[in-house]
């Protein structure tokens, strides 16, 4: 009796790749006062004054800083909200 031919199960070769992260980047600008930038960060990023000040100082010193990293949808919303505060914010894919 012939042995039933058992189809071998296809080997799973699923590659799990992490969803790309997106950065919310804010550039330094000479128009908005530091206190105003801190207020914008507190309201948009929902962070306290000390963290908002740390980010603001980083931008002032470096010319730019990533203020948030995560999903594309959320990053897009945050960039739009920061632009509504007239900050020079942009969306960048994580390298």
């Amino acid at each position, binding site marked *: 009796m012939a042995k039933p031919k058992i189809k071998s199960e296809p080997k799973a070769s699923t590659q799990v790749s992490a969803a790309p992260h997106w950065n919310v980047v804010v550039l330094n*600008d*000479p*128009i*908005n*006062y*530091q*206190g*105003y930038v*801190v*207020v914008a960060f*507190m*309201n948009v990023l929902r962070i306290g*004054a000390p963290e*908002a*000040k740390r980010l603001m100082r980083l931008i002032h010193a470096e010319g730019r800083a990533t203020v948030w990293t995560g999903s594309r949808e959320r990053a*897009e919303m945050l*960039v*739009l909200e920061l*632009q*509504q*505060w*007239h900050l*020079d*914010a*942009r*969306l960048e894919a994580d390298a």
Partner: protein
Amino acid sequence: MPELRLTMTKEARNVLSDLLRLIAPAAARVSVNRADVPAADEDIAGFWVETLTAQASEEARLLAVAFAGAKGDPAVIVLANEAQGQAFLRALSAVRLALRDLVFADITDAQLEHAEDLDDESLPTEKRHALACYACFGLLQQSLIAQLYPEALD
């Protein structure tokens, strides 16, 4: 929360109102032009521009109404709540951005950051005038932040 008050002399109010009449209509366009809008998705880009334009137009209207309603000497602008205060802060930022792009286009960022050093006889009268208004709008913004979010100031 108590109402927010911005006080200025009657003369300052008149000068700032006159400048606002000129610059506010352009402020919305300037803020949209400056924004880095993701262009990959046409629908998203359209929504993005629409959102920024609508908000900037509303802010320009808010400023015009506030300054027109500030009577007396000293003139006082009264804002009822935090939401109005935030909108006013953003509106003042939009006007300063518009002045930067439309009036001070030939002044470098570094010079503008130390604008107090610029206010001398070498500048044309209308530019010195606009520079004084630019500084005044900044002072109003600082005063509002001190009332709303004192923890944001050093």
